[in-house]
């Protein structure tokens, strides 16, 4: 079922939770609404579910206008943040609820209801919980019950509101994979609300990054990481550090001796650079007043530890240590900047690389564009 949202507005008092949201989701797609708390993602989900009225704009689901259609007539499966299971009903009755409240003509009989519920219990891999009560379940089990309950009404659209929020990290990862597999099997159009970018990137076909009631960017995860549309997106995804600098004559300088300048084709003026940890290599250097200093080391992938480097002026940056070159806490170090996303004074974005002067100085310089997670060539200094 396709979902089309155009110019949607919803205000709470003076603040606009949704400030002109437009979005088009394809049939069978798994979309994620990603954003910090207060960005309007849950409100958008609630408007889609019919739990919150829209003030302006339109919502069409499978071609049908949704303004004024109450939640109970929409046939949309919703998994709530805290699952909202009916505590006085067994797991079986919880899942059967959607079937048992159907109008008499369409309501399946007892045997058919039982068969459908058992099938859903199998699908969500919790057949043993049939006779249990919600209070007796773990977070992960409750989530599966909530999902089975939402699927019982055979929805064409499934809305998930922070469904992994209450799970611990290990269960979360497992449930995530399982949910994605379930989506492949059932093919139900699904919209997930989350503030966890890792979750959104792993699960969704496309991710809508929300910022203060608007969609900042709606794109495939890789596109959002590689070409963020706005400084907000660049700062919100990919653990990027935000650094202010100045462009002069095609060179971006940060006013930090430890950070090399970047070559850009942006107009002169102030600029914002976003630097991801894997775009920044830290290596030992001689003691000097304007050098960086390693604050903390933690093991990373490929025997390449992640470090936090303190720079003069109170700036701290996440960087990768050079493979095979150990760094220790408190050691002075030099930073090699491989690339950065830079937004110029005119709002244009550029993927910037070190200026030629820098490349010449580093005779061991890595090829341009080699940056990216897991794409760093392993070489020993």
């Amino acid at each position, binding site marked *: 079922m396709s979902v089309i949202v155009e110019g949607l507005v919803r205000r709470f008092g003076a603040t606009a939770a949704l400030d002109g949201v437009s979005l088009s989701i394809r049939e069978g797609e798994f979309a994620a609404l990603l954003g910090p708390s207060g960005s309007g993602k849950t409100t958008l989900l609630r408007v889609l579910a*019919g*739990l919150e009225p829209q003030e302006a704009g339109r919502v069409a689901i499978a071609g049908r206008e949704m303004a004024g259609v109450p939640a*109970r007539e929409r046939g949309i499966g919703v998994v*709530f943040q805290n699952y*909202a299971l009916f505590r*006085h*009903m067994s797991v079986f009755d919880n899942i059967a609820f959607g079937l048992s*409240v159907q109008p008499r003509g369409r309501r399946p009989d007892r045997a058919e209801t039982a068969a459908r519920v058992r099938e859903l219990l199998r699908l969500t891999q919790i057949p043993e919980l049939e006779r249990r*009560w919600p209070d007796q379940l773990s977070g992960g089990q409750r989530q599966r019950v909530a999902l089975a*309950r939402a699927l019982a009404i055979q929805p064409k659209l499934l809305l998930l509101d922070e469904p992994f929020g209450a799970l611990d990290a290990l269960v979360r990862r497992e449930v995530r994979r399982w949910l994605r597999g379930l989506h492949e099997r059932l093919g139900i159009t699904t919209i997930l609300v989350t503030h966890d970018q890792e979750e959104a990137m792993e699960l969704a076909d496309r991710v809508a990054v929300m910022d203060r009631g608007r969609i900042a960017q709606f794109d495939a995860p890789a596109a959002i990481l590689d070409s963020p549309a706005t400084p907000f997106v660049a700062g919100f995804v990919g653990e990027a550090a935000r650094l202010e600098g100045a462009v002069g004559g095609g060179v971006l300088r940060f006013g930090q001796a430890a950070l090399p300048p970047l070559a850009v084709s942006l107009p002169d003026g102030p600029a914002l650079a976003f630097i991801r940890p894997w775009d920044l290599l830290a290596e030992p250097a001689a003691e000097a007043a304007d050098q960086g200093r390693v604050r903390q080391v933690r093991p990373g992938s490929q025997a390449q530890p992640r470090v936090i480097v303190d720079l003069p002026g109170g700036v701290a940056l996440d960087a990768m240590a050079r493979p095979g070159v150990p760094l220790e806490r408190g050691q002075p170090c030099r930073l090699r900047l491989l690339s950065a996303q830079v937004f110029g004074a005119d709002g244009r974005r550029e993927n910037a690389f070190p200026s030629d002067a820098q490349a010449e100085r580093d005779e061991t310089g890595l090829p341009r564009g080699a940056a990216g997670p897991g794409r760093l060539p392993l070489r020993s200094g």
Partner: protein
Amino acid sequence: MSAGPALSPRARRQTAIPGFGLAFGITLFWLSAIVLVPLLALLLRPFELGLDGLWASLAEPRVAASLRLSFGAALLAAALAAPLGLLLAWAVVRLRFPGRAVLDAAIDLPFALPTAVAGLALTALLAPNGWLGAPLAAWFGWQVAFTPAGIVVALLFVALPFTARTVEPVLRDLGREAEEAAATLGASRLQTLRRVVLPALAPALLTGFGLGFARAVGEYGSVIFIAGNMPMVSEIAPLLITIRLEQFDYAGAAAIGLAMLLLAFGVLLLLNLAQRALRRGLA
């Protein structure tokens, strides 16, 4: 301090909750002094009459009628207070309207008001020449004051805050999510109310009913003004106890007290059992 192996593990079981011995001792002492000893006196006093005398004292038609009236009216009032209290709690928790805080505070007034004041006010209102009593008598021929109906009205007044206040926190805790979930699953409002909201509130409603009943059955101040106190018709058991005390028939008064104690305990026990059954469903 090392206690050595002399102390068995059972003698000094470790618990994170401090002061068990002290707290339990003081609790038991106060409970005995304030509740158990007086109740024991109440249990023993009537037997001064001997078993036959006790039976004769309670079998008096006037006593039986007053007990029937007291318990019947209290049960009826609590049964009426349960849905009304639910409605009040609903309005305070779920609805937003001007004056909500005032209504919220007004619910507690019957707790604070001397019940005699409430009795006087209700009597003035419902008496055959009162603001409400006069039109009721003129239009429907109903007389509320000085009849058992008046007693129920007075008891409803004192029982209402108990049901409203016991349901309110549960309703607040229930949140909108369960109701919203029911709506997304296709339930109508009536289905949501009947299958999601009311079952979740049932234990609290039952508690409210029990508290309201307990309060109503012992109510004295407001009832004696509005009841008319006609023997066999509108005379409540607590009043009869007072009458016997005034006649220096202490054992006879205690006999009625004992009967009330046992009946009330029976009702509350039944309610508690019902509630446990309900909770088992919830567990």
